[in-house]
């Protein structure tokens, strides 16, 4: 078998391992789209965006810098906390309190010669489409579903069928404990984050009456302190979940509540975990998932091997709890996806519901997860969260039932939420009969 030629990067001895792979075809390389010679230079000219400089973000920056990318931007609004140090390996004790994006960028630039990393210490929502248009690839290492949905909607919105450069592949990673997932999205072509939203359903909220009158679990006591006692007593002007004094106050309240009902198990750690919705995280899992994402980035940027996304598998699920297990599959695009689809989605509602019940139901609905929805039906405004004048004007509707508002089965309603300003969620009402409470 003849050995194909290696087309070296600017420092051939240094990048020899990478160049052997990215500039030479392998048995799975598609010869129609692969050409080895321009790869190194093309990757050096690419601009790639990393969103998040936390557990995944630190790994992503390291991996991309060692994958031949030279112009990397990173966005993160957070500052370094002591609880980051068990996995966010670009940060040291002395960095606590500093900007994650800035410290991470400086560290990787110093360690890997010839790479330029531009930090942005702000929110992703602070940038407009012009900013995102400059990148060829976006890689996300986020812990918030809301931020993922926002960048997903933004990138899909940017697609202009006539401009090839307007398609920005999005690679997204996420971890929890020993588990995680890596997925690749080609905007408007493959299933998107919004299509896959129901795979990350929010935890069911504990009913308020359980918190208020019949707590049974230590978590119920913590939620009571958080939701009810804090509002009643207002011990500090505003709750800061990162302030140990505030958590201690909640912990003590929860503990008294637990003692009153004989409920065991309230601890400081549990209190903090419930209030901040802490997800366990370790270096090892971040290492797996971030590397899986960057491996796809390298393949997409060079075409040196088939990548996830097109045409088949686009999602890799990983679990390390029981042995090691991956499930790599194709998540199908949804025609009724509010972001990348066209059709309205069926929504089962009880005609006897008040509009308030309908509005409140969007938060827990796995495929919507909207906290501040505004609703319109054909030809009329049902409820608007803002501006205040319109809110006041539409507020009386909240106590009317859907029937009283003249809504009918099969009717379409449009829902918007300030967290996803560009998205109109279209639903088609299906009437169901009332079950239990």
């Amino acid at each position, binding site marked *: *078998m003849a050995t194909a030629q290696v087309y070296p990067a600017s*420092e051939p*001895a*240094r990048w*020899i*391992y*990478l160049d*052997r*792979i990215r500039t030479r075809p*392998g*048995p799975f390389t598609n010869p129609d789209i692969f050409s080895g010679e321009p790869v190194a230079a093309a990757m050096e000219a690419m601009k790639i965006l990393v969103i998040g400089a936390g557990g995944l973000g630190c*790994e992503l920056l390291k*991996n991309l810098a*060692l*994958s031949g990318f030279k112009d990397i931007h990173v966005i993160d609004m957070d500052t370094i906390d*002591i609880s980051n*140090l*068990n*996995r966010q390996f670009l940060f040291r004790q002395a960095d606590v309190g500093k900007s994650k994006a800035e410290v991470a960028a400086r560290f990787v630039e110093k360690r*890997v*010669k010839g790479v330029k990393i531009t930090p942005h210490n702000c929110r992703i929502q602070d940038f407009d489409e012009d900013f995102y248009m400059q990148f060829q690839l976006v890689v996300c290492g986020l812990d918030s579903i809301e931020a993922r949905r926002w960048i997903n909607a933004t990138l899909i919105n940017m697609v202009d069928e006539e401009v090839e450069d307007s398609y920005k592949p999005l690679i997204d990673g996420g971890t929890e404990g020993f588990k995680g997932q890596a997925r690749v999205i080609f905007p408007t072509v493959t299933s998107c984050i919004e299509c896959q939203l129901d795979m990350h359903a929010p935890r069911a909220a504990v009913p308020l009456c359980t918190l208020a009158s*019949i*707590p*049974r679990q230590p978590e119920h006591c913590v939620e009571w302190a958080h939701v009810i006692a804090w509002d009643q007593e207002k011990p500090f002007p505003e709750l800061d979940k990162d302030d140990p004094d505030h958590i*201690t106050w909640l*912990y003590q309240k929860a*503990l008294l509540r637990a003692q009153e*009902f*004989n409920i*065991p*198990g*309230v601890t*400081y750690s549990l209190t*903090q*975990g419930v209030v901040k919705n802490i997800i*366990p*995280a*370790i*270096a090892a899992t*971040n*290492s*797996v998932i971030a*590397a*899986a994402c*960057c*491996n796809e980035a*390298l393949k997409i940027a060079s075409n040196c*091997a*088939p990548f996830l996304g097109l045409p088949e*598998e686009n999602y890799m699920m*990983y679990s*390390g*709890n*029981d*042995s*090691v*297990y*991956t499930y790599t599959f194709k998540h199908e695009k949804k025609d009724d996806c509010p972001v990348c689809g066209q059709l309205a989605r069926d929504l089962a509602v009880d005609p006897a519901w008040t509009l308030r019940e309908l509005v409140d139901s969007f938060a827990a609905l796995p495929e919507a997860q909207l906290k501040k929805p505004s609703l319109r039906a054909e030809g009329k405004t049902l409820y608007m969260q803002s501006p205040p004048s319109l809110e006041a004007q539409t507020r009386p509707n909240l106590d009317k039932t859907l029937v009283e508002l003249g809504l009918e089965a099969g009717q379409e309603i449009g829902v918007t939420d300030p967290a996803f300003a560009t998205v109109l969620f279209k639903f088609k009402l299906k009437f169901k009969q009332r*079950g*239990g409470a």
Partner: protein
Amino acid sequence: MTEIIMSQTPPILHGPSEKERKYDRQLRLWAANGQAALESANILLVNSGAGTVGAETLKNLVLPGIGRFAIYDEARVSEADLGVNFFLDDSCLGASRSQSLTELILELNPDVQGSWYPNEDTKTLDSLLTDSPVFTVIMYTHPIRPEQLSRLEAYGQQHKTPLVAIHSAGFYSYFQINLPGAFPIVDTHPDETATTDLRLLNPWPELVAFAEELTKDIDGLDNFEHGHLPYVVILLHYLEQWKAAHDGKYPTAFKEKAEFRKIVQAAARTNNPEGGEENFEEAAAAVVKTVVLPSLPSGLKEVFEYEHTDPAEQRSGFWLIADAVKKFYEEHKCLPLPGKLPDMKAQSKVYIQLQGIYKAKARKDAAKILQIVQASPGGEHVNPAEVDLFCKNAAFVKLINATGGGASDSSSGAKISRADRLKAAADREFANDETAALSLSPLSLLPIYLALQATAHVGLSTATAPTTTNSESEAAETAAAAEAEKQQQQQQQQETTRGFTAESILAAVAQAVPGVEKRERVVQAAREVARAAGGELHNVAALTGGMVAQETIKIVTKQYIPADNTCVYDGVGGRVQVLRL
């Protein structure tokens, strides 16, 4: 039980310590006992080849705070290292790779200690193994010299030290865990939803009395009380009614359970303001999963049936407790009660009472087990907390490597060699591939293992790097750097011609498993391995280092379930497969 004692003691009202804050996100996974195990671990990495996967693995162990590590690596830092290894930089060129790696990895966590070899005092792997305190786990990366590998395997046997082989090249990698014997795990962390064990078909007297008391006038209860009966109590009540109507028999067949569920659903009140009852909905939803006869899970069955080959192993706490649980099971036809009650709609006081009944029964069962343990020879030294943990997790206890690690095949008594196991696995995997398209299952990754394994000792430089220390002059360092670079470049040229052609890989595969070298998947894997020619891709090394670190943490903490025993990664297709080889 510790849980009860804690709840009775007024907790201290101060926040977490500095260390608890630093390790908060991982303590939620393996708790203080897992952390203590990590902190007393001493890990050896024998590093060679491109050398990145070992460094990435160590990074993921140093960050969560393993006690100490040692790196044995004969290489000097080359230009090629700097394009793939994050824990080396330009200033390291020409220096000892083990020293440079150790220094930059130690920066990650001031709580961890590390040392590097060879150095002036300890010049060989053999003297390192002879002079060091026993290692908890040894990891080595391919390619490795055969004589070093034999030395490590002998050490593993002698000291009962788990060995992890790692090989990462191009888009491919695998790691293989070699445990010194059967490896039992009690704290397996099953999914919470799987752990509910309510004993509805064999309730004990206290539980029966409690349910009867609450339901003796069920129709006379007011709406609030009726709507807050715990679903356990509802199910016990209607199960009694069912039994009375069915010759004393419980609903056990699927059809009977469906019918029983309808009865429970129909018993809910609908003439109340809510138009239904949530607790009855919970009860109906719980029928299929909780109205079950006690059974012996396969993992525990394997523990019960395990035949010991090592008398010392038999006297360990785990096996003494396992024997006691087996006796308990034979006598009572059920396992000790775990005692956990899931949340359910109920009044606080009623729920806490019910929870207390489950906990009391669990304590009683655990006390019985402890009694049996203590009556057995050596049992007086067993820690009661260990008995409690076993009882809570009995249904999920797992035995890893039950037949491997030099153990004999129980059916024939003959020892199965590693080579024969590999051939058997090849038969099985390639047979599966024939039907993979029909069953929609992915193709086997065994060809990747075979192709990598064919280069397990290929590409090693013959010259051992001289040992130098910081005290040497700058000039010598620079000269050494230049020399190392030259050597490296020569080596790279040699690599592509020596042993890294698809033909030579396939020839080696044919020796290991004759006949498979013509298979298309094997040829493809060989070509992909040849493309890398022993070089690593950083991403694949990082991903593999993450998996190996997860496995090492599981082995050291004896929590969660380690892979048994070989895990192959395909970076082209983006997936892994675990094979027992």
